[in-house]
């Protein structure tokens, strides 16, 4: 058993190094051929690390919770509504916002690859891109929600949106109770990434404090 374990450990370790070397080799080739400036690659990574993330989506949700006119325009044409917000990074085309209600819960998946509203939520988490979620979300969404510790009333309709084209979906979760009079900034702090994918709920006022 010990030998077996050791073998596996070494194997995994060398595989990781192989990938690192391979990535470095490819980048060197692309740089030497004049296809990419490595500083531009640094800048791409930095932009992803600093500019995009669920805070963008959270601001949109908080505004929709506070401003009925904005909410209506968001549900009508999310691309247009979001692009009118100066403080959120430009979203590009084909964004669709879908509203959770007491009758209906929305959940987003990409069964074929990993389509996800990057500009709203950042890069997708590993679980979103992995086989368990991609395979089961369309067939057994309640089972998937249970994996997240989420349960819905039996009669609630569950609508699963499979992102099979360039449309990107943002779930507009229900505003938590007990937040009357809260500012958009306060509300945004309750909005979680998973609540905008449909695999979670926003935080509740008590839990957030």
């Amino acid at each position, binding site marked *: 058993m010990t030998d077996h374990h050791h073998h596996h450990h070494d194997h995994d370790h060398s595989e990781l190094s192989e990938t690192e070397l391979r*990535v*470095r080799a490819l980048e060197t080739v692309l740089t030497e051929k004049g296809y*990419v*400036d490595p500083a531009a690659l640094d800048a791409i990574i930095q932009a*992803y690390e600093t500019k995009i993330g669920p805070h963008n989506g959270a601001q949109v949700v908080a505004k929709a919770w506070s401003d009925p006119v904005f909410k209506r325009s968001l549900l009508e044409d999310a691309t247009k509504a979001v692009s009118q917000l100066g403080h959120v990074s430009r979203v590009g085309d084909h964004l669709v916002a879908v509203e959770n209600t007491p009758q209906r819960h929305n959940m987003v998946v990409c069964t074929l690859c990993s389509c996800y509203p990057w500009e709203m939520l950042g890069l997708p988490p590993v679980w979103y891109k992995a*086989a368990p979620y991609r395979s089961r979300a369309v067939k057994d969404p309640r089972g998937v929600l249970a994996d997240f510790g989420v349960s819905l009333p039996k009669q609630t309709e569950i609508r699963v949106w499979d992102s*099979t084209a360039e449309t990107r979906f943002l779930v507009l979760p229900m505003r938590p109770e007990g937040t009357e009079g809260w500012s958009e900034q306060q509300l945004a702090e309750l909005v979680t990434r998973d609540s905008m994918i449909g695999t979670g709920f926003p935080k509740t006022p008590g839990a957030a404090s």
Partner: protein
Amino acid sequence: MNGVHDMGGMDGFGKVEPEPNEPMFHTEWEGRVLAMVRAMGAAGAFNIDTSRFYRETLPPLVYLSSSYYQKWLLGLEDLLIDKGYIAASEVAAGHAVEPAKPLKHGKFTLDDVERIMVRGKFGRTAPAPARFKPGDRVRAKNIHPATHTRLPRYARGHVGVVERDLGCHVFPDSAATESGENPQWLYTVVFDGAELWGAEADPTVKISIDAFEPYLEMA
């Protein structure tokens, strides 16, 4: 293609395992791979559909046993080699040997970074009026193209209802094989759980796909 990437409805992959406080990248090289894919795509070496197609055509065992960014790396290597931008021997040696092939949009530099942080536009002028409208009952065709398609297997042959007309878009099935954008109407089509998964399915579940017009026929 009927590949292992088309996972909707498969069993046996186990529980979803969310990682608390997940970092954006788990290792430094993941970020490099993401950046290289974005940069080479923006420089005009390939379109997004071609890059998806190359990941799908990885051997099934490789696809299933590789991490997400490993798939991106392997797909990128294969694609750049096939299109003549690099040679396999160069990747093996870790240095450029052959002359470079001109890129459609030229070298990717710092000036190009901002534009790739905004999503691309896939809407196109319609070559013909839309065949379907919201409320129409449509059947997803029973088709099995050997190349890239965005019609998942679990929907094929099943009847749903058109919910939204999303306009006319680049058709991935054509773009992936570099056969032109061939714009097609795109619709959100909703299926009842029981239509897709049988009488035992949860009656409260509905599933929608975004389906291009050539995937659909009137039911």
